[in-house]
């Protein structure tokens, strides 16, 4: 399963780069990779414990974070999850959360590949 990275999002980050400052794109992708596992863990625990509010908050966070780094598929999935959690639709949450970790890992791989290419 291949996951594509939205170039527009990356360009947006790079355009915000100011000369002499640490590389913004690296900082943001690093932040994404370091913060997201915790968020995903929260989300999955929420699904396990049927805590829809925890699911919603986590989905919302990951939705924004993934959108910034151009992981559009992941962001879309989180958006659906957020909606399902908001609607208290537990079965939908379970279905959407099932392969979320895989999608995240694929997205990270795609992102790394894209960045190494750039470097």
């Amino acid at each position, binding site marked *: 399963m291949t996951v594509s990275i939205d170039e527009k999002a990356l360009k947006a980050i790079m355009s*915000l*780069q*100011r000369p002499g*400052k640490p590389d913004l794109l690296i900082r*943001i992708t690093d932040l994404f990779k370091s*913060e997201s596992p915790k968020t995903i863990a929260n989300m999955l625990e929420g699904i396990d414990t049927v805590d829809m509010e925890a699911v919603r908050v986590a989905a*919302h966070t990951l939705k924004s*974070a993934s959108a*910034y780094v151009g992981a559009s598929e992941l962001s879309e999935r989180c958006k659906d999850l957020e909606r399902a959690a908001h609607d208290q639709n537990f079965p939908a949450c379970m279905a959407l959360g099932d392969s979320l970790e895989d999608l995240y890992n694929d997205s990270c791989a795609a992102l790394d590949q894209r960045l190494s290419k750039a470097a």
Partner: protein
Amino acid sequence: MTANSPQSMQMVVPGLHRERPIVLHVDDDLASLMMAEGALEDSGFDVIHAVDGQEAIDRFNEHEPDLIIMDAVMPVMDGFQAISAIRKLKLGAHVPILMITGLDDLDSITRAYDEGATDFLTKPINFFILPHRVQYMLRSKLTADALRSSQSKLDNAQRIARLGNWEWCLGSNELSWSREFGRVLGIEEGVSLETWTEFVEYIEEPDRSNVLLISEQSVEEKQPFNVEFSVLGNSDGAQRRIRLEAEPYKHENGEWSYMLGTIQDITERINAQKQIHNLAYYDLVTGLPNRAQLTEQLRYTLKLSKRNSTKFAILFLDLDHFKQVNDTLGHDAGDDLLKQVAKRLTSVVRQSDMISGGDDDDDADSQHTVARLGGDEFVVLLGVINRAEDAARVAERIAQSISMPYDIGSSAVSVTTTIGISVYPADGDDTESMMKSADVAMYHAKESGRNGYQFYSRSIHEQALTRFSLEADLRVAIETEQLTLAFQPKIDMKTGRLAGVEALTRWNHPEKGAVSPSDFIPLAEETGLIIELGRWVLREACLQMQHWIEAGWPSMTIAVNCSSVQFTKSDIIEDINAAIAYSGLDPMLLEIELTESLLLQDGEKGIQILSDMKALGIQVSIDDFGTGFSSLSYLKRLPVDKLKIDQSFVRDLEKDSGDAAIVTAIITLSHNLNLTVVAEGVETQEQFNILRGFNCNEAQGYLISYPLDIEQFSLWLESYREQIMQKVSGL
């Protein structure tokens, strides 16, 4: 810092107090924070971060940021709660807050505004647009601040000045007004006032009608107007004085469609003016007018006295031994004494008004002034007096009243006063000299012993004393019958028969002997004693005549003089009636003599009294005829029986052809009007002959007889026929 200085050119938002405005960005999404930071710092902002609502509040207090970007959904405390909390902070009330919400989350947008967000932005955030949005928000915040500050300054200025403004739409009658307008009028919070008509109802009558009239007229004429009126304040219900200014105002379409104006509470100003006036013109201890006020009153009195040729008096007084009271009992006791003295002075002067009242001056109250010059010195200004004795009488009352004991604290204190009096115009013709004369007179009075009064002019003083004692004596004379009647006969010039007698008053003073009627009659008139004296004369004259008639003497009229005071100030008809009833005399035999000038004074009222006299059946004659200026038509209307030609015409009859002509004219005229003519003061045979030649009816004078007392008159009567016959036959 000026607008074109280099620093201001660099400013992101000109006018903001920070060169680089601080933006507080609150988001739990660190990526979002990083990207926004890049965009904002690039555009000239400093950025601080918070990852939840609670941290946002802490950061806010710490850094006082110029603007907040707030994410909606966050752990610990979400964005809505944070906004609500920040808005409650002192510095947070007006800080612009940009809320970040989901793209299609309408609920959040609405809620954000409800909690106090300034604007919103949807996710995903466009970080290129963000700095522009932030800049725009800061600019509009400055504009809003300036407006708020200007509004608040205006509010404060209006509050300090107690000045409110208003706008009246003439078409709809609607009225809009500032906060202070409401406070000035005393409109309670929440009470609506939406029209000019409702506003006018706050105004007290009679001002309300006035305001309505003036405003209607000004609207009609498109003229500015100003007016003052009273309203009842809301807090204490005390009346407040308001000044309103208004100006017509043209709408953009060129029509006069508004009145713009202000109202200002001027109560304090008016009170201050009153207080200043009181401080300037009244004595603080006694509340009496002070020297300044007295001087003004004196100037006015002087002007009035000059114009009306009236007299006024200044009584200058100080308290004897006042210093001792002050020294032994203290200044408070001294002040207390001064207050009580002031009260007594005012009371005496007011009573004097009532006593001298009825003298045509209804506002006598305002013509007299009691003032304190300072220390223990007072001045009483008697605005109008008839005679110097009036002032002496008031001085005596003052001296008596002041000398009564005072309760000061727990002690009884006695003081006396010494009074100096100056009388206008004798003692000075300006305010300074009048005051000085009174002052000097007071020192004279002190020299001659305290607790007394002294006139400035020795002659006035003596005259006043003399007239005082004469007045007292006359009072006694009337009571103890020192007065007697004298009788002077009149004869018929054709037959020589006795036509009547005139009763005259004589006063035989036990010490001074005979006092001339020309001395005591004017005194009796001035003091009003003439009324009692006149009653006595009427009764005695009627009684004597009745007595003679009962003794078998021939019937003849008895003439009694009536003074103008009796005529105008007493019920003369009642007195005549009483005398007739008491004596039993036939009214036909009583004749009342009135002077021509008296009748001229009183016009219609005089004619009425004359008619009443005629109705009693008595006879009326006009005395001293020819000295007044009666017109022929007036004479014709008078219901009288006789004219007495004044002796001044008779005196020079032999020498002065003019007098002869007048006498002839009077006699002819009188006969045409069916009046009997009596010549007074006939002293010589020649006068008698001439008058008889003119067909004069009766004569009276030394040629016939001097006035005689009762015994002399009895003797005269026994032999009169013979005497008269001789004179008549000797023609």
